[in-house]
């Protein structure tokens, strides 16, 4: 079986091929032609990145907040309520499959809250994916904070720091550095999990592959193109996180570094 990558230069309307492979998307000052499958592929990639980025922002903000709340000491009624809430959050979003959550946000919740009916499916799927991932990030944050020696918290409090100050200046700066490796996995997972968005009509890479393999009868080429873009995206995320890890590292601050500080 031979592969025919020319198909990406084909117009999505006619049986013609664009000499530049790009139709309307990158015109190179030559005027708009028919959109090609390559144009469509790039647009689909844009949707994948958009869903992943928005979901990641939601997941990081909520995940870090919920994860931190799970580690506070339960002295007052308020802190007990907060701990209960954050535990419930994690258990709720961690125990429902992500595709089911996407359908819940798209089909069920708008029935209960009519205002959500006007939300574009792009937003709903980002919320669903963000909440799902936030539960996982929260779990990692909690583990990161608990991995610090008890003395850190005690030392901060004996210096007269408030609870907020203890977290802001002592615990979180260290815990955040510890959880960068598992966070890298989560950030890469969110790119791959964004494929569920096809189920609620976001024209991202998976939807592109499913649709174009039928239109062009060149499924293998289409899936190869999409796979390559997923790999590029996930690997870029991986490298960016590695860079962040390297830039924020403080030698001797957290024990195991690649140079072996002990």
């Amino acid at each position, binding site marked *: 079986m031979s592969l025919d990558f020319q198909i990406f230069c084909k117009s999505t309307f006619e049986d013609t091929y664009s000499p530049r492979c790009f139709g309307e998307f990158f015109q190179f000052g030559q005027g708009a032609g028919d959109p090609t499958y390559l144009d469509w592929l790039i647009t689909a990639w844009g949707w994948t990145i958009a869903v992943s980025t928005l979901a990641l922002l939601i997941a990081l903000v909520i995940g870090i907040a919920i994860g931190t709340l799970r580690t506070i000491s339960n002295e007052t009624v308020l802190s007990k309520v907060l701990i209960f809430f954050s535990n419930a959050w994690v258990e709720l979003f961690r125990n429902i499959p992500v595709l089911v959550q996407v359908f819940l946000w798209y089909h069920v919740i708008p029935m209960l809250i009519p205002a959500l009916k006007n939300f574009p499916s792009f937003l709903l799927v980002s919320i669903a994916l963000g909440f799902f991932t936030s539960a996982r990030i929260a779990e990692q944050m909690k583990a990161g904070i608990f991995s610090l020696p008890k003395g850190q918290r005690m030392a901060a409090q004996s210096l007269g720091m408030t609870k907020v100050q203890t977290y802001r200046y002592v615990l979180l700066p260290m815990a955040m550095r510890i959880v960068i490796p598992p966070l890298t996995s989560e950030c890469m997972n969110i790119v791959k999990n964004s494929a569920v968005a096809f189920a609620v009509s976001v024209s991202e890479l998976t939807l592109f592959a*499913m*649709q174009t393999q*039928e*239109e062009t009868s060149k499924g293998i080429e289409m899936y190869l193109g999409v796979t390559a873009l997923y790999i590029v995206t996930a690997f870029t995320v991986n490298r960016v996180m590695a860079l962040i890890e390297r830039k924020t590292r403080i030698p001797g601050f957290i024990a195991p570094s690649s140079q072996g500080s002990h």
Partner: protein
Amino acid sequence: MKPSKLVQVILFSTSLVGIVCATQAGTLEKITETKSITMGVRDSSGALSYTLGDGKYTGFHVEICKRVIADLEKKLKTSLKVEYQPVTSQNRIPLVQNGTVDLECGSTTNNATRQKDVSFAVTTYVEEVRIAVKADSNITSIAQLVNKKVATTTGTTSVQLLRKHERANGVNFEEIFGKDHADSFLLLESGRADAFVMDGSILAGNIANAKNPKDFKIVGEVLSVEPIAIMMRKDYPATFKTEVDNSIKAMMKDGTIAKMYKQWFQDPIPPKGNRVGLDLSDNTKNAWANPNDKPAEDYIKK
């Protein structure tokens, strides 16, 4: 890798390709030799081809294929072991090409692109793309869908059809893509979409299975016509296709196929006893009166 090694690898892989190609004898010889035939079937292609569970398959096209195989057995004077291989839209053509499936009895559109890779028996059913709306809707044609929410299913030619229609007429639909037909129908049912554009048999099947079939209706002009046919490997000479075609043509002539159409598209069908309730279209009637294997492109020119 040293160049000599590279050459070795290339030689080895090309020789593998050679072996694979050499084993592709004619389909008729293959089934005579192995005394078995593999039928490609679909899990849920409306009344054309679907599963009853437990590895059992039935439907309009599956039953036609069973009769074709019975004719083949008479012709070859031997009994054939029939094996079922479930296929999907994605893998059906490669599986026919590589010899896994001998006779694909699903819901494959006969078009010019596919004719380059595989061959099709004479058209047994002509699909018409239509519009389904809620019974209380006042939409009656595609012209009224402008700026309305239109549901259709990812991975179908209807998506392309709508896109081309939009451009040809300079109009805009707000398309919503369901991940499968049941999902697209749910979009219509829940009011997220104003219309569902899809193959008539699928619309009719979904409406028949709905909680309240009276809530929906199929309206408007026929948006596109697609010949659906039984698919097989390309053979030179095409002895297998001749046998299959002759068997189907006989069914068309003596009215067997019309009886089968009534059985699958109008009478209650297993397992739940639902009715698809789709009247025989003029296009299908024509295909039976003048058996042919013309691709979809020839239907557009008319």
